[in-house]
């Protein structure tokens, strides 16, 4: 009896699957693959997935995407790659071959984007990455001319932190002693390496330096040792859980520094929600021009549609790359080669301002450092974006 029920249910499920109408002609299938589980799921849930939802809603609310004079509504197919590059690649194949998606959005994070670049290239899909930071844009675009980089490179991001601290030092807000820590993975090691040389060249002295393994549950020994070195500034190239943990330890230990920098997740709305006004003056990776009307309007819609605020770094960039794709498709239709040529040849008006890729398919102007000032994470250093504000000295934690 039980087995029969099961068979009946299975048959029903199968039939339901089969009888779902093949998408009507006036809808376009959009494929998206990114982590919903695994180590990077938390970041993707803030910066990536809400933008997919928002973009599709926005386009459909306008009546759809105009392709060759016809309005087409968007329909999303989402896959979870479990933060596993192998799964990302499989999902892209599935989206193209099985689901027949006409548009495939780029995946999430540096690692998964780089891992999936060859498969996007093989299908000739325009891949406007929005969450990958790499200094190898030139090599990448030579090998995969369909790949675009918009979030910037590790080198400028580390140098941005050095620039912000140098400004504070010049103003006399901080001395020259720096405690620098990093998470022991490719991201942390690369940024710390670049930053260390640049800090020393800028006349800083590194009084404490260490790395800690990804997923360390107790960072209080790190913070205690950093505090014991009596630094004027604290810099951490950290990932989300450790960004939160280091900030909390700094508050508990009452680390008195004129500049406090943590990396990924500092720009997350959850950061200020958790720590409140105590983190005013904290510097972090990312930034946006919070005063630009385009961003303000985008943030309000993000809140209304997804129920959450965007972060102050990658969120708007993710949405901007979708806008680039949207504008290109409306201009030249669904031919991938033509879309890629159009992206290369034009500048686009987006929520982060003008997005114009250079000869290496790289967006040369991006935010590198932001700072919490009065409850808003404002951009303080960039490679040519408008609207940067002056960094201020970090006051006490209370």
């Amino acid at each position, binding site marked *: 009896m039980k087995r029969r029920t099961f068979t009946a249910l299975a048959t029903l499920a199968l039939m339901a699957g089969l009888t779902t109408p093949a998408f009507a002609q006036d809808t376009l299938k959009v494929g998206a693959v990114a982590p919903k589980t695994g180590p990077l799921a938390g970041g993707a849930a803030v910066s990536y997935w809400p933008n997919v939802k928002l973009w599709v809603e926005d386009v459909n609310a306008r009546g759809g995407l105009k392709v060759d004079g016809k309005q087409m509504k968007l329909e999303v197919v989402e896959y979870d790659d479990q933060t596993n590059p192998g799964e990302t690649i499989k999902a892209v194949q599935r989206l193209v071959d099985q689901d027949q998606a006409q548009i495939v959005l780029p995946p999430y994070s540096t690692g998964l984007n780089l891992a999936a670049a060859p498969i996007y290239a093989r299908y000739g899909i325009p891949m406007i990455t929005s969450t990958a930071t790499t200094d190898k844009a030139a090599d990448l675009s030579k090998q995969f001319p369909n790949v675009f980089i918009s979030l910037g490179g590790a080198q400028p991001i580390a140098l941005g932190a050095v620039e912000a601290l140098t400004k504070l030092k010049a103003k006399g807000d901080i001395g020259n002693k720096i405690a620098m820590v990093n998470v022991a993975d490719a991201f942390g090691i690369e940024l710390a390496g670049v930053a260390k040389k640049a800090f020393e060249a800028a006349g800083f002295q590194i009084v404490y330096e260490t790395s800690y*393994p990804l997923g360390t549950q107790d960072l209080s020994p790190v913070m205690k040792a950093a505090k014991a070195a009596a630094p004027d500034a604290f810099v951490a190239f950290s990932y989300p859980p450790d960004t939160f943990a280091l900030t909390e330890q700094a508050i*508990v230990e009452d680390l008195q520094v004129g500049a406090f920098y943590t990396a990924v997740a500092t720009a997350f709305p959850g950061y200020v929600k958790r720590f409140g006004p105590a983190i005013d003056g904290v510097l972090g990776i990312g930034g946006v021009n919070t005063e630009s009307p385009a961003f303000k309007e985008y943030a309000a819609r993000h809140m209304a549609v997804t129920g959450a605020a965007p972060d102050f770094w990658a969120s708007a960039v993710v949405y901007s790359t979708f806008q680039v794709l949207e504008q290109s498709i409306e201009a030249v239709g669904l031919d991938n080669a033509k879309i890629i040529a159009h992206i290369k040849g034009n500048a686009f008006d987006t929520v982060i301002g003008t997005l114009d890729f250079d000869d290496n398919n790289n967006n040369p102007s991006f935010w590198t450092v932001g700072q919490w000032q009065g409850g808003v994470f404002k951009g303080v250093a960039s490679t040519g974006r408008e609207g940067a504000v002056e960094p201020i000295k970090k006051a006490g934690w209370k």
Partner: protein
Amino acid sequence: MDIIITGLLLGGTYALIAMGLNLQYGMARIMNLANGEMLVAGGFAAFWFYTAGAVSPVLTVFLVAPVAFAANWLIYMIFLRPLVKRAKSRGQLEVDAILTTFGLSFVGVGLMLAFFGGDYFSYSYLSVPVHLLGDTYGANRLVAFGAAVVICGALWLWLAYSRMGVSIRAIAVAPDSARLVGIDVRALAALAFALGGAVTATGGALISTFLTLDASTGVIFTLKALVIVIMGGVGDVRGTVVAALLLGLLETFVASVIDPGLTLAAAYLLFVIILLVRPQGLFGRKTT
């Protein structure tokens, strides 16, 4: 001194993570790979009550524990009881339980994603410095440590001295003989499993005050719990506590004196050494 206290605090956290699994694996004989998901669920409950209603996580615990107890009892009855019934040997039960709970861990992650989304959930509760013997520590870690002491102490007293505790230890040592002296093995195993789940969820609620969790972080805690339970000796409360404290002290010592980058290496080195010297764990009984 500073290293010792920081290490003990971390050890207390580890004890909270591992104690539930010890009950489930040691007493109910279910190697529960979905243990970490239960912990994250407990943490989520604390987060939700704190952000939505400003209810202190220390109070939430009193709600989380009974709910988790009931949920785990149901999980045991629905998914695991059939395995116990059909298992011909302990080995077979272990394999079946691992496969089933491995699947359940995915269900757990999926449910939490569906209900709460994949975002990090982190909040600040009692992240104020407390001065102790000339040094500062986070109040939330002290609270969690205190709770760990209370929970582990109560469990140990209960298992060592109460009639039911003795019965539970009996089913852990010799389930077949226990039946001969009139112990209802099935009911007690379900109870031990449910209790383990309640302890795990309570631990999750407490550690969420200082750790940043998301729906899919459970597996990290399952692994840590597994290492601690095996190091301490399966089915022994004292073993788990000692192993947890040892691990906390060692990690803090290495992080403070040598290099924070070596904490993981040191932890697993300790694990390997214990396995080499005492394969049954610190307090484990030799299997015959």
